[in-house]
């Protein structure tokens, strides 16, 4: 049996999945929807406070994982904070929004917004790492045309 299998291995074939794709329509839900509306309509970033432990979460969601309580207490966090962590990405990557290559370097940051206990991930408009420091003050830059997505924030900029 082994020899028979070996004889057939002079050609090992591959097959491609082709162009098939699966399209999803995700509901943003009852907590991310107001968050996106805040970006779109008021150029502000909304968080939510757990009335049990007092932590302020951004982006907002229904349940505090630590307390397992429903959160109701919305907090307007404005648009300023400080850098918690950053990286300048140099490896080319595919833009998940379009499936097309996007230019690098691109700077990813975690921002601790004033009044929040968690960090928000976004981009910084500075790709020279010698000009970026953890703790630097930043502000969200909003797009002119806003559609109620995370891209309503163009990026963050140092102030």
């Amino acid at each position: 049996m082994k020899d028979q299998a070996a004889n057939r291995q002079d050609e090992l074939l591959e097959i491609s999945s082709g162009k098939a794709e699966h399209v999803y329509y995700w509901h943003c839900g009852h907590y991310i929807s107001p968050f996106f509306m805040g970006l779109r309509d008021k150029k502000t970033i909304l968080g939510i406070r757990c009335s049990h432990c007092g932590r302020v979460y951004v982006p907002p969601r229904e349940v505090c994982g630590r307390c397992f309580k429903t959160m109701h207490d919305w907090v307007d966090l404005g648009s300023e904070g400080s850098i918690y962590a950053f990286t300048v990405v140099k490896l080319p990557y595919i833009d998940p929004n379009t499936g097309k290559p996007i230019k690098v370097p691109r700077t990813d940051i975690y921002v601790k917004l004033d009044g929040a206990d968690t960090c928000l991930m976004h981009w910084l408009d500075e790709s020279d790492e010698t000009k970026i420091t953890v703790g630097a003050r930043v502000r969200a830059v909003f797009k002119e045309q806003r559609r109620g997505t995370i891209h309503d924030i163009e990026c963050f900029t140092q102030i």
Partner: protein
Amino acid sequence: MERVAVVGIGQTKYEKGKTKNFAELSYEATRKALDDAGIELSDIDNVVTTTNDFFDGRTIACMAVAEAAGSYGRDATNVEGDGTLSAFYGLMRTLSGVYGTTMVSAHCKVSEGSPRKIVNQAFDPIYDRLLGMDAISSSALQARAYMQRFGITEEQCARVSVKNHGNARNNPYAHVPLDITVDDVMRSPMLAEPIKRLDTSPISDGACAIILATEERARRAARKPVWIRGVAHCADAYRLGERDLAWSQPLETAARKAYRMAGISHPSREIDVAEVYDAFSYMELMWYEGLGFCDRGEGGRLIDSGVTQMGGKLPVNPSGGVLSAHSVQVAGLARIAEAVLQLRGEAGKRQVPGARVALAHGTGGICAQTHCVWVLSN
């Protein structure tokens, strides 16, 4: 806890672009594990497989691996996560009193799909995913947070890469054995600073299987049993922005629970060898701290001291670790298999002489959202 042993292990060589399909790969590992234990599939009471639908490119991928993993005709369940967690389920099933033996298997053909896209799709589809996050950029943020808080240097991270790729030269299953220097790592291409090419793990295809048995059933196996002394698993928050990126509390929690179960009070003195999930070089330093091998923030000093090298008091990743072979959800199970080889004294050129207590560690999720810690002894 009733005693449960690992009585058989099997691994494929880890490499990119394996021509065997997923089932052929899985079968190689399960067949090797049975042969290693000196038992037949009829001796296996139940099966835990480990699959990932995105990497396998099919829905409910666990179904497709039934024959190769030995699930046909018997009870089987599946984990979509790291193999250390599958082994944890296997342990619980063996302890249930219903099953005397459990086959635990994992396979992954990372190279067949689009690994960066697949990791991007692990992020929230309406938020982080759209910003292009993937394993490298998110880990770079974690590395930054960790290094900034504790003053860890890029050279200290590079030392992990030099050690583990060097150790991989002694492991016939490793994918990327390398004879490199700290300078080589520092000069390798910057991917997402502070992470450079040689700080990252490779894209590896592979499979691993282990067989667990109750004490009674272990007596019938050919191999000297390796006993499970303590195991624990703990999860962090999903969103990276909600975690302390510089310190893994869930790892410390899991380690403390596993040590308590195993009766270990001084891990750095009582553990002879450790296999940890170093998907990036900085992670090994963070895991030293969470596992209690050193104090918080001291991971850099520990690698500098040489304690974790071969020949040191606590060698970490004699196999070359995940930096030298990263078959995603297989990688944690491979850590257990390597720990078993060490405790049997069968680890060949990578053997830590006289190893009696070994630690194996696996992680799951982005930037190690979950940690599973195993303590084994001979």
